[in-house]
């Protein structure tokens, strides 16, 4: 059979599967989902326990940001088992033996990046949601998507493989940091953000 298609048609016929593979298949191959060690609901803690963000994520006077409270802080409310399997797992696995919960942080940048929360919160007065989205209101901890090659979190690149930003917080590559810094009239040097 000698099928002769016009050039644009055969070009499109080749391009379509290539794009499909690149955009749909590739992200699935590149990232693996890693479950969080415990189920954690921000919503439940804000509503049932009335805790505010800085009750758990506080900026210390030394300028360091305590990403998540140490397990003693959870122990105040979760000293005993009962209620839900999540609480049981927390008490049994971490509170009683005094072990820290190995949370996986989606926002985590590579090792060579220095990101201080202090200037962004105390000087620029930015909202958490500007960079993290609605995570503070979430009903469950997000599963962590890890890049199989670099080990980086997918949140650094962002959800769209072509880096289309539907929300301001989609992706936090170097260009995203610098774009916002430029909008604020700030030119940064390599050593401001790299260590």
């Amino acid at each position, binding site marked *: 059979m000698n099928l002769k298609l016009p050039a644009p048609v055969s070009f499109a016929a080749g391009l379509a599967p290539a794009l499909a593979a690149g955009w749909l298949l590739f992200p699935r191959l590149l990232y693996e989902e890693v479950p969080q060690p415990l189920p954690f609901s921000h919503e439940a803690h804000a509503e049932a326990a009335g805790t505010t963000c800085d009750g758990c994520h506080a900026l210390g006077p030394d300028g*360091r940001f305590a990403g998540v409270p140490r397990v003693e802080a959870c122990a105040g409310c979760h000293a005993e088992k009962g209620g839900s399997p999540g609480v049981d797992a927390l008490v049994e696995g971490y509170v009683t033996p005094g072990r820290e919960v190995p949370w996986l942080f989606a926002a985590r940048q590579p090792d060579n990046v220095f990101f201080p929360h202090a200037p962004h919160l*105390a000087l620029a007065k930015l909202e958490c949601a500007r960079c993290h989205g609605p995570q503070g209101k979430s009903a469950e901890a997000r599963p962590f998507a890890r890049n199989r090659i670099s080990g980086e979190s997918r949140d650094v690149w962002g959800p769209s493989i072509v880096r289309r930003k539907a929300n301001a917080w989609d992706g936090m590559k170097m260009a995203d940091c610098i774009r916002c810094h430029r909008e604020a009239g700030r030119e940064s*040097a390599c050593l401001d953000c790299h260590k």
Partner: protein
Amino acid sequence: MEPTANPRERRHRYGMVIDLDRCTGCGACTVACSVENNVPPPPERSTERTGVVWIRVSEAQDPRPAGARSVFVPVPCQQCDDPPCEKVCPQRAVELDPKTGIVAQVAVRCLGCRYCMAACPYHARSFNWFRPEWPDGTAALLNPDVSVRQRGTVEKCSFCAGRLQAAKAKAAAAGSREIDPADYVPACVEACPSRAIVFGDLEDPSSEVARLARESESFRLLPALGTRPKVLYRSVEPWVRASLSQPEVSRG
């Protein structure tokens, strides 16, 4: 992309003056520096030429026939105002920060060509010939404020930039853009038992370091090259000042 200073912030020019009459050559600065900056211990097969060191203590001899004296000279990156290493880097992995005067070596950007090492007249740069390895148990003691560099990259003293970053974050938490100078002291300065190194902001005329830098006993290594280092030395001995300004002697 030339980074420009942010108009809201004061410019700084961090620098140090090392008093050679006080230096005993004990090497405490080198050790403190390696611990602070996650410089790995040299593997057994490394030699004097292949190890990594950010502040090397070398020795200079009195060149006069009758003179049997010598002097110890600690040599960190001289933090030049006109750094030759920056000009030759094909990757732009070396950058003079106009806000602080610190010459940055961006490890992730470095491809390991070592042009900068050839360009540096002070031999203040090291190449990672080996994969960094930490003896059992010590990996947990690494400083989280400084990244570990890969094999195949060049590194050098950063004036303990991690400490500056921490000091800035502390100031920011208190609502300020200016650090308290007491919060930013490099590890070598802190460690020196004879207090031979004075560190501070050369731009601030009232600082101790700026005052010492103006004195006639203070000098730079190889001033004829025009690199304008922000690391200065001082000695009351004329032969020390004279010989360290010559290329032959300071190549230790």
